[in-house]
């Protein structure tokens, strides 16, 4: 057996060949980006009506793309464009080339659908390998993948990445914390992938079960799908003795693996030879000054099934002007702290208040007063939707009221894809505010 200390130190990593583009000299990187941008703009222009129309409106054709800097000539793409062209309107490849479809929750009832060719899946897996390599992971690692599998890109993204890395993948998926801890112990797991809040929950449960993570070979956490903070990192690392790394990604771009922290844990490197970043003013869409905070805009340089030109992520961050101590040439963004819209993330799932309204309206005829309370109990996110009971829906029968509660909960689960507690409250107990109602109260400690 390898001794615990050397596993914890993460020795045996070394340089992974997939990481080569991370170290490209600037000129070469720009050449590669330019070459890929030309190809992808042509793919988008030739195959997607929306892109062609938008570019025509701006008087731009693929021939106007001479260098990566010309990306600013391209039109922006918004989440609403995905909704408006649901399901296949933004596909740029024929069905016989598409091998995967994923979906995430949209702003209302319809999901946001994304597609991948075989080549896209390879780019994605490769980006995940580069992310794992950033954390010092290698083929000897035993990866417990506790991201949810399915339409959500987190699970299968990390899974294919782990497989491409040559590591052992335990596809445990989310939930069943006691079993997660049992497997972590019994299989000498060295790295875990999940949301940071879920890992905190695992830690608290492990403590109750008398399991000290310090005594286990676990050494790295791949934490993403929700915003978190330095203080959360400090807490996780102190409680477990592992290194907690941030990973960034969104399904519209490719899924997890758009960017990752390196062992310096100082900002997330973007794999910008595939995902080209810009920072713009969220109000005007104008480019920000170098180092200035703004909205991250990403262009996929290699995704053939569904190219994204200048996708507005609504994530607020900045690009670090300095190069990283790790030696990688690819640029870094600051970890995502907030958003420019009202989306919130719960248990790794994106939720828009407008979806909650859609769900409530599906049960009640008129929009009830409601409020969303987000809480974190033992590291686990909880979402409660408080709904005021009106005379229209009130019944003297317990069963009928519980039935209403269940119907609302089911409708929410259907629309959001996650479970939310529904609490019926008396009328006029939810605070009315002037103008825009305060729909979301977030009590989670970040």
């Amino acid at each position, binding site marked *: 057996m390898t001794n615990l200390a050397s596993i914890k130190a993460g020795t045996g990593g070394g340089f992974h060949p997939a990481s080569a583009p991370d170290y490209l000299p600037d000129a070469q990187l720009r050449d590669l980006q330019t070459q890929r941008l030309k190809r992808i703009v042509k793919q988008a222009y030739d195959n997607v009506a929306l892109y062609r129309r938008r570019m025509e409106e701006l008087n731009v054709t693929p021939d106007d793309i001479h260098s990566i800097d010309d990306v600013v000539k391209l039109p922006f793409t918004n989440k609403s464009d995905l909704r408006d062209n649901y399901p296949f309107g933004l596909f740029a490849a024929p069905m016989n080339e598409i091998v995967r479809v994923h979906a995430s929750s949209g702003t209302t009832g319809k999901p946001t659908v994304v597609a991948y060719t075989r080549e896209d899946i390879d780019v994605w897996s490769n980006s995940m390998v580069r992310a794992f390599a950033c954390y010092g992971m290698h083929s000897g690692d035993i990866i417990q993948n506790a991201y949810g599998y399915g339409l959500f890109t987190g699970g299968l993204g990390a899974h294919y990445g782990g497989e491409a890395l040559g590591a052992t993948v335990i596809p445990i998926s989310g939930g069943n914390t006691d079993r997660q801890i049992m497997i972590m112990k019994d299989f000498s797991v060295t790295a875990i992938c999940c949301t940071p809040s879920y890992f905190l929950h695992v830690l608290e449960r492990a403590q109750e079960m008398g399991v000290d993570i310090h005594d286990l070979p676990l050494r790295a956490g791949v934490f993403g799908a929700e915003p978190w903070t330095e203080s959360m990192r400090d807490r996780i690392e102190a409680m477990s003795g592992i290194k907690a790394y941030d990973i960034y990604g969104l399904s519209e771009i490719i899924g997890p693996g758009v960017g990752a922290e390196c062992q310096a844990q100082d900002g997330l490197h973007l794999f910008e030879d595939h995902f080209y970043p810009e920072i713009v003013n969220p109000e005007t869409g104008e480019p920000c000054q170098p180092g200035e905070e703004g909205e991250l805009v990403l262009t996929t340089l290699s995704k053939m099934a569904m190219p994204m030109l200048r996708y507005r992520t609504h994530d607020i961050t900045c690009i670090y002007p300095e190069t990283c101590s790790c030696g990688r040439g690819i640029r870094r963004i600051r970890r995502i702290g907030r958003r420019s819209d009202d989306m919130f993330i719960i248990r790794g799932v994106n939720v828009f208040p407008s979806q909650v309204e859609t769900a409530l309206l599906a049960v009640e005829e008129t929009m009830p007063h409601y409020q969303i309370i987000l809480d974190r109990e033992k590291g686990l996110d909880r979402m409660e939707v408080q709904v005021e*009971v009106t005379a229209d829906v009130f019944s*003297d029968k317990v069963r009928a009221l519980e039935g209403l*509660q269940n119907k609302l909960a089911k409708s929410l689960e259907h629309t959001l894809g996650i479970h939310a507690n529904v609490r019926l409250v008396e009328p006029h107990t939810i605070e009315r505010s002037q103008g825009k109602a305060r729909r979301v109260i977030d009590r989670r400690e970040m």
Partner: protein
Amino acid sequence: MKLKQLSLFLENRPGQLVQAAQALKEAGVNILTLSLADTEQFGILRLIVSDWEKGKRALEAHQCVVNAADVAALEVSDRPGGLAEILGIIEECGINIEYMYAFTFGRDGKAILIFRFEEVDEAIAKLQARNVNVIGSVELFELSGGR
């Protein structure tokens, strides 16, 4: 012969019951009997009051969610087996009980039970045909001392 029952939605938090009682007190409405159903998250207070319309208005003025529903007050013998007897009759009549609770007082060895049936009119007709004494609101009010 059916009675009006008021029901109130209550969240499970302190002071909720007091508020409702206060509203009725201010309006001068007397509570003849009540029952409280509680669940994990909320409760339903069911009330028979001296003047249900006035009571409903008073409670609504206090921003309570109030419903009025028809229930039946049945007289039963206040002796062992009295309840079994009436439940037997109800079952024989094929009537579904949603819920029930007891009235706080009776007379001459009789007790009074409040029943919520799915089809109250039909249920009362069937029960009366079996000689069950269904008590009306005036009678009930008098029974309770005419306050």
